[in-house]
């Protein structure tokens, strides 16, 4: 089993870099010049109503960029302006009702320029109430605003040395490993959903439901994308200490068990919610970060209303398709781009339909030649042949392509299913792997969709496919052949 796992790692690893040429065929990479002398560790990106781009930096600044899509992308043509500074490790930024909100280690701050001199003068505490023990790992992310105008943030579990100077919070930092909600009109964050380790991304899908990402480690077998809703528990046991509080919406399981598979945990751990999508380790990178739904109306390519997920180690972006089965979200992930200049921490879309990514690899390592920066991915207009959607259908799966494809030797598809173990140890290999018994490949008359029957579907397992070489009817080869569907429920 371990051997099989390794085999995949190697092929995935070598496969990753082979697409650089194709990548630039479909998406041009534009590297934005950043102001000299500033470590431009971009951690949050959002558009202001006036067309300027607000960027938060880990060092505690907020900068505004006048013309974020300017080319050549020089400091001068982009137009940088320092708007606010002196804050404590900002790891997220959003614009809501015209105001900039940033998340610092210990609070969400709303920034306003009340005297209209171009620089923030009001640093209003919009949310606080979570514990900060001084341990390095207590990152805080967000915010996002839900349909009702409530604010949501995600908080890392605590890890590392606490500092006695934190007082009572050194003994018990509140809501660590939780997503928290600040109700509209309030300024106090309280627990909303639990069981996170390092939930570096929080965002909304096209329907306005909240999603988060997390990173492999203890209790997190590989990077997941989860549907955040009130009372959900996603598996990281250390957060349960706060589930016994009277104001906790999460009901703690009677007993947390170490070593169950995800498929077992669903039935044996009360309240455990499996993530909507798992991103298999190494094959899709090693640490998911920010997430953003493509609402460009097709300007960014054929992936409208799908989600894009930042990837730290590979300095890249993955793509996620979601559908609802039995009332719950689940879906598939696909590689998108990799090999950018540094770890992607956050991402957003500009009005021209290009994607902008904010980068910083402080504290860890990543592909690429720089430790921070901003880059844009600009569609060239050439539409790649990709698997647009992978849906679960009764008894099998349906692949939908972005362009009509020629028929291929579908029997050469490599496909397997596996699950993961939830454990206090670091991560999990793929466990209980089984080759998929595929048959009855059928391509639609228009060449856009392909269905296959699977004789051994297993709920609670990731179903991974590597298609054979496929080409579009115009000869264009399939850009990415790998995809993985998280089949929590059978349709």
């Amino acid at each position, binding site marked *: 089993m371990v051997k099989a796992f390794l085999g995949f790692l190697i092929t995935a690893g070598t496969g990753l870099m082979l697409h650089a040429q194709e990548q630039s065929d479909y998406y041009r990479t534009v590297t934005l010049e950043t102001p000299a002398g500033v470590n431009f560790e971009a951690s949050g990106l959002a558009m202001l109503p006036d067309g300027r781009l607000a960027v938060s930096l880990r060092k505690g600044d907020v900068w505004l960029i006048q013309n974020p899509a300017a080319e050549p992308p020089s400091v001068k043509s982009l137009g940088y302006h320092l708007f606010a500074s002196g804050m404590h490790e900002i790891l997220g930024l959003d614009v809501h009702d015209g105001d900039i909100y940033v998340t610092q280690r210990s609070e969400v701050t709303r920034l306003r320029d009340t005297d209209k001199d171009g620089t923030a003068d*009001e*640093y209003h505490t919009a949310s606080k109430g979570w514990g*900060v023990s001084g341990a390095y790992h207590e990152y805080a992310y967000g915010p996002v605003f839900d349909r009702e105008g409530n604010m949501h943030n995600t908080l890392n579990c605590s890890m590392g040395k606490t500092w006695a100077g934190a007082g009572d919070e050194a003994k018990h930092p509140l809501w660590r490993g939780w997503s928290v909600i600040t109700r509209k009109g309030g300024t106090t964050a309280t627990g909303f959903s639990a069981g996170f380790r390092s939930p570096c991304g929080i965002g909304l899908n096209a329907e306005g439901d909240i999603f988060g990402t997390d990173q492999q480690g203890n209790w997190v077998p590989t990077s997941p994308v989860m549907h955040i809703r009130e009372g959900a528990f996603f598996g990281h046991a*250390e957060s349960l200490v706060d589930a016994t509080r009277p104001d906790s919406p999460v009901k703690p399981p009677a007993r947390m068990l170490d070593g169950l598979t995800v498929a077992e945990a669903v039935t044996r751990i009360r309240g455990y919610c499996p993530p909507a999508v798992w991103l298999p380790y190494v094959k899709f990178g090693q640490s998911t970060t920010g997430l953003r739904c493509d609402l460009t109306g097709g300007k960014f390519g054929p992936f409208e209303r799908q989600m894009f997920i930042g990837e730290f180690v590979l300095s890249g972006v993955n793509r996620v398709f979601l559908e609802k089965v039995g009332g719950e979200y689940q879906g598939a992930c696909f590689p998108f781009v990799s090999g950018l200049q540094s770890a992607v921490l956050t991402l957003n879309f500009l009005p021209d339909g290009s994607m902008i990514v904010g980068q910083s690899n402080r504290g860890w390592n990543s592909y690429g030649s720089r430790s921070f920066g901003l880059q844009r991915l600009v569609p060239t207009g050439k539409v790649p042949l990709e698997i647009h959607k992978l849906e679960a259908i009764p008894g099998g799966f349906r692949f939908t392509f972005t362009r009509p494809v020629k028929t291929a030797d579908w029997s050469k598809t490599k496909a397997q299913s596996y699950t993961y173990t939830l*454990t206090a140890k670091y991560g999990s290999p793929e466990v209980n792997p089984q080759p998929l018994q595929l048959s009855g490949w059928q391509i639609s008359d228009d060449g856009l969709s392909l269905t296959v029957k699977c004789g051994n579907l297993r709920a609670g397992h990731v179903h991974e496919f590597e298609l054979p070489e496929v080409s579009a009817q115009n000869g264009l080869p399939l850009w990415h052949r790998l995809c993985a569907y998280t089949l929590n429920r059978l349709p």
Partner: protein
Amino acid sequence: MTQEVPMPKTKPNRHSMCSLELRAWSFLGHWPLFIGHLLLASPLTAHPLQAEPVNHAYVFTFDQFNLSEDPDEHVVEGGHLLLAELSCTACHAAPEAWRERLAPKPGPNLAGVGSRLDQDQLWLFIRSPQFRKKGTQMPGLFSGEEGDAARVEALVEYLSSLKQETPKMPAGDGAHGKELYHKVGCVACHEPGSDFRPAKVPAAMDVEKPGNASVPIAFADVYDINSLAHFLQNPLHYRPSGRMPGLRLSDQEAADIAAYLHVGRQPEKAVERAALKTPPQGVEKGRQTFQAMGCTHCHVSETRMEGRSHPVLASLNTDKGCLSASQPTGVPRYDLNDLQKRALKLAISAVKKGGPPALSALQKVDWQMTRLNCYACHDRNGKGGPEDPRAQYFTSNDGSAESLGELAHLPPNLDAAGRKLTRGWLEKILFGEGGGVRPYMDARMPDFGRDQTAMLLDLLPEADRREPPVKIDVSGLEKHHRAELGRKLVGMTGLACVGCHGLKDRKSLGPPVIRLTHTVERLQPEYFKELLLNPQATQPGTMMPPMFIGRKTADKDVESIWTYLKELEGQPLPDGLISNEDFEIKPAKTGRPAVFRSFIEGAGTHAIGVGFPAGVNAAFDSVQVRWAIVWKGRFLDAMSNWQSRDMPPIKPLGTDVKELPSASGTREFQGYRIGGDGVPTMLYTLDGQPVEDTLRPSGGGFERIVTINGKTTKEAISW
């Protein structure tokens, strides 16, 4: 004849253990039985000495790797292990072809034993080792026959006469010893205390108990405490077999663990020894008995003595002797369980059939690692590593290593160790000094002794050879050019190795993974290249990112990095490790007040620092909602926020730090507003009333202006 047994007065959870002891006693029906009272203080119920007893001669790796449902082809290997580890072959000589493989391990060195154990303890142990120390590998030799009392007494007198002064060890601190016992690696084999909670176990979870039995330490409490400390520090001196390896403890650490293990209950009195009233036998008779009973086959006491001869291994009847249901005096009694007996019978028949199958180097390494139980800590080729309930005690002393997960806690996987490490470095690790490169890990690599490990120096490289070998050019041609390229690649603007790896005395910028300082002494160049080219394939589970996959210049780059690391002395350090930048925030230079949030000493984790060009500074605690400290001179260094990963709290850089009085009333922080002059005003409510609170430099100190509900008061703060 049996006698009534008085029940010992002990804590309830001790009872189960006692009843087992009683069964063992009644097996020796005709010995007069009295049990001394074990006076236990209540915290001791959680002590490692209270481990669930093992009822057979315990060989850790036998129990770990053999189950009764295993097929004969597997169990026979376990039998070979027992033949060697229980030192069967010390008495029953193995045929020449088997001799190396089944070599008995040297028994404990009894020189000076009379200084470590008192006569009653020697008497109890010799008379029935299985009773005194359940699970011991020391066989019993006395079934209670006529004359046994005199022989046991003689042995006690003889061993008691072997005196040796133990060097004086310092006084130990039991609480610290408890910490050490649970983190340096003792619990890989021995029982964890049930009152020690591993830090990693979340509050909602029970601490899981080990599934494999623990190696007994029932004697810890019987040694005098100074001897125990000296034993813990120098186990190889007392037990040259290395089965109890040295954990490289300092005098103080050994004394601390001794203080923890030596619970100090009243020494057990061998009341039955007194009741027997055996007359003194004389030391010389004891010496003869020691030889006559065959003790000398395993033990050294003074000088090596010849023992009596026994049938050779290949001639044994496997239904008799040590393997029969009970043993008369003179036949070793091990209390073997059914699986052990089956294994031994299979192994002896295999030996009778002829020479052993030739072992490859890979198998020989596995054999020695199984004998020494390297597998208690290490995983190699899918075998071994601590079971989860023991692994949870392995910890890291460096918080910033936590994100490395198991790699920060657990001893490394040894899959390709033989082609990874140089011979010189292997020697350092196995029996030398300074081989450790993971200072963040609490567990230590123990010393098993040169005799037990030297063979690995030749076997490991052969076992782990790679075909075809990786080719790397380390000739160092054009080395100045290449070393410089290597330096650039290691630096932050190159491949950013220093993002995770430190070098020399410099920490990495990120997690504290192995420093690169000794790379060329430690690693074989071929392995270095193999690892860099495909980290996951070479070292499964590593967190090293695949920096070279798809890189056209990979060969040259790897060689350049090697060259740089080889020429490290005299070369500049890579970019990123030396910070030439100045991160001090200097309000005097900009002429405007500076606001800076961080973890600030004296103001907590939600602090807001404010520095003024006039050289006075303050920090506001936004949880207590008050100005917490003021100070003079320099303001703050932003290094923690701007550069580091672990974000340490920062200290006021200036002088005259003064703590301000604590605040009263119900306060809620709301933020701050920055005036046109850059001076921040803190905004909060006090008992529901809106408050504006500003400090302005005044007369070398501050003027504090507080407006509550529109009403303003001013006060001077000077210090």
